[in-house]
């Protein structure tokens, strides 16, 4: 175990290391996004169906699009350093305000997915590994393969067809019943009801992934010497599996879950658009096609920070699961 304060010191050091990384990502994002042809004014005028040239020039001027690239980059970096993410001219709102309103739903979706997929993945992996090549193992392995290979949007559409249109158990889309304006606990229940299908859709792939991972890790661990030792001590099989093997086998799943946070964020784009879930992924997607660069850079900045924080959290969780791992 580390000396007292080591964990906090480690966390601080990691955060300090992250600053240049974030900075580099901000510059890279800015450069890449400005390579895209067309700008926000083209899109706005395109949507309006027509515009006078004077109107378009006026807008470009106002959005600061007439300034040279280097000036805009310097200005943006300066603003980000003071945590000012700029203004979305398209939405006529500060970017921070737009992003904050949409962060909650995405975190809810991601959090629920993470909990469901890790829990279910560990449970299925455990069951499958407990009787290798039994019918349960075969069934779980086949389902995992199917879940792993099915495209996300298709799962979403099929779940809507079956559980919403045919059976009528769940609403097709949205986060709350529109027009009902529930309060308090009724609102919580309402949101949970709306959350089921999106989480099921987004979890499917990860459940499959973690099941396979967990199964393999379990099988690897049961052959280890410490298991033989535990058996020799006369410990019951159930206890060996749950306290010794499980704890070791869960490490790769935790690693993977940490690494996958970034891709989970990518998956929310699809799920949020299929289920009209009012989150960040959908906002980012729409912002890109509208060339709302300030907004999309703001979302990317937030995502970068999120991934860094989650990776740090995963490293800290490691030391709790396995005291032999040291923070350095």
């Amino acid at each position, binding site marked *: 175990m580390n000396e007292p304060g080591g964990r906090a010191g480690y966390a601080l050091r990691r955060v300090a290391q992250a600053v240049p990384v974030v900075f580099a990502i901000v510059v890279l994002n800015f450069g890449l996004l400005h390579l*895209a*042809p*067309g*700008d*926000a004014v*083209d*899109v*706005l*005028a*395109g*949507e*309006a*169906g*027509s*515009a*006078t*040239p*004077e*109107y*378009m020039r006026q807008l470009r001027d*106002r959005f600061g699009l007439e300034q040279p690239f280097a000036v805009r980059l310097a200005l943006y970096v300066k603003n980000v350093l003071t945590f000012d993410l700029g203004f979305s001219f*398209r*939405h*006529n*709102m500060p970017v921070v305000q*737009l992003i904050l*309103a*949409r962060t909650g*739903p995405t975190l809810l979706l991601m959090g629920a997915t993470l909990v469901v997929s890790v829990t279910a993945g560990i449970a299925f992996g455990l069951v499958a590994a407990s009787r290798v090549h039994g019918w349960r193992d075969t069934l779980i392995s086949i389902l995992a393969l199917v879940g792993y290979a099915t495209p996300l949007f298709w799962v979403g*559409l099929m779940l*809507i*067809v079956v559980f*919403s*249109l045919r059976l*009528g158990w769940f*609403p*097709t*889309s*949205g*986060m*709350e019943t*529109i*027009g009902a304006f529930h309060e308090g606990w009724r609102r919580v229940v309402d949101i949970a009801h709306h959350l089921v299908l999106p989480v099921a859709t987004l979890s499917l792939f990860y459940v499959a992934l973690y099941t396979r991972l967990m199964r393999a890790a379990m099988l690897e661990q049961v052959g280890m010497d410490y298991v033989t030792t535990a058996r020799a001590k006369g410990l019951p099989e159930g206890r060996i599996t749950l306290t010794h093997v499980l704890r070791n086998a869960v490490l790769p799943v935790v690693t993977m879950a940490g690494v996958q946070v970034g891709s989970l964020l990518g998956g929310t784009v699809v799920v*949020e*658009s*299929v*289920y*009209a*879930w*009012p*989150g960040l992924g*959908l*906002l980012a*997607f*729409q912002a890109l*096609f*509208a*060339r709302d660069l300030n907004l999309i850079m703001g979302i990317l900045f937030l995502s970068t920070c999120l991934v860094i924080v989650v990776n740090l959290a995963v490293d800290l969780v490691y030391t709790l699961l396995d005291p032999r791992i040291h923070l350095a």
Partner: protein
Amino acid sequence: MPRRRFPDLLTTASLFLLVLAGPAWAQKQGGTLVMLVQPEPPTLASYINPSVPVGQVAAKVYDGLLEYDFNLKPIPGLAESWTIAPDGKTIAFRLRKGVRFHDGKPLTSADVKFSVLEVLRKVHPRGALTFRHVTDIDIPDAYTAVFKLSAAAPYLMMALSGYESPIVPKHLFEGTDVRNHKNANAPIGTGPFKFVDWRRGQYIRLDRNPDYWKKGRPYLERIVARFIADSFTRTAAIEKGEAHLGGFAAIPWSDVRTLEKLPHIAVTTRGYEMSAPVGKLDMNTKRAPFDNQKVRQAIAYAINRDFVIKNIWFGFGKPATGPISSSFAVAGLYSSEVRSYHVPNGIEMANRLLDEAGLRRGANGLRAEIVHDLTPYGEEWQRFGEYVQQTLQELGIKATLRYEDVPTWLKRIYTDYDYWITSNWIQGLADPVIGVHRLYHSKSIRQGTVYVNGTAWSSPRTDELMDQAEVEPNPAKRAALYKEFQKLIVEASPIAFVHELQFATVYNKQFKDLIVGPLGIYGSFDQAHQAR
């Protein structure tokens, strides 16, 4: 199921209301309409951004001076009457008394003057064009607004709806930065519905305005605008009754044909008369081989319009004949006396014209190789692109398809002019001056401005005809000018006119009188009501 009790309760409540209230309109009161709006509007400032989603929501909150009937004739709105001088240079509007904005302040002629001169003319994307002949607006009293024009502007009377030219409150906008106003996303108008709340990514809530100037209206208690990014989910929401209305392309044409079979769903193609959308192929007349009129005519001949409408647009649409949509026939501006490219032996005619143009087939049977750009506005255009590709193959022109996202495509066509031929669609809008001239006038060859003259074709005679039609107050003379204009454009064929798009509005039959005029879903919905 607990849900079952809900309708009973409602019935009881409405019966109770009926007994209490008495007047005939009481039975129409109440109900929440959930309308799909696609995509989510970026703002509700319809005086700056008149795109479909913005207009669909804001037109419930803002009124205009006029409304319109299906014959494209103005009917009273905020203006209860008007007189136009014989020379067309003075238009005096008499405003309705007792109209109040949602914040309680009365509407006066000062609001009209401010909205037109300080807001619409300065920040509306086509306001500078619509109101360019307006030199001043006199307001002799609080309820009279007299437009002074430098020349007659017959199209002006078509552009005064609550969608196209919303009247905004002067007392909130005066002395502020109109382009960046706090009420941009929380509009305050005089319309039948008041803005209440906007949950980004979810919905906009509009509630009934009890002080609306049309007594007893509106009937609906609430309108909720919902945003669902995925077209399949939008269709599912309509089917399940979670949403009640979808217009423009919110429901894809393919799904309209499925939904219309359901007993609780109705479909109408009315309500797009003032949008007058036309699907077409734009040709770059500065690039060979499309610098040759015969080649352009050949393309126009080769397209089988019936096939396209039936197989790609699921039967929605009608063959287009020229630059002005046939929906302007009621206004007398449409003419079908033009060269007809809608012929049975189109391919044959096209091949003959290409031979005459000197574009001979090479050893490999090919006359030319080009890239065909697709307008990025939905799957239909991709299928249409594949159809064009095959058709061109029959003419000996090898076309590669190119599909880009909206900003990239707009830049390619209207800034870089880096294309041969592209599919496109455009709204004819309320009058040819506003919607059509921009595509053909030499003054509209403006690099970097979208949806103007991207083919770079013009002629002195057509310029002249448009300039005259813009200021011609006599309807018969104006019609004659447009007749010649249509003939010349169709002959020169800078654009192959394919079909007049028919959008379908899909709605739940519980709701009545949703689409009551040529503005369709851009209407105020003050007559809409829910059947009990």
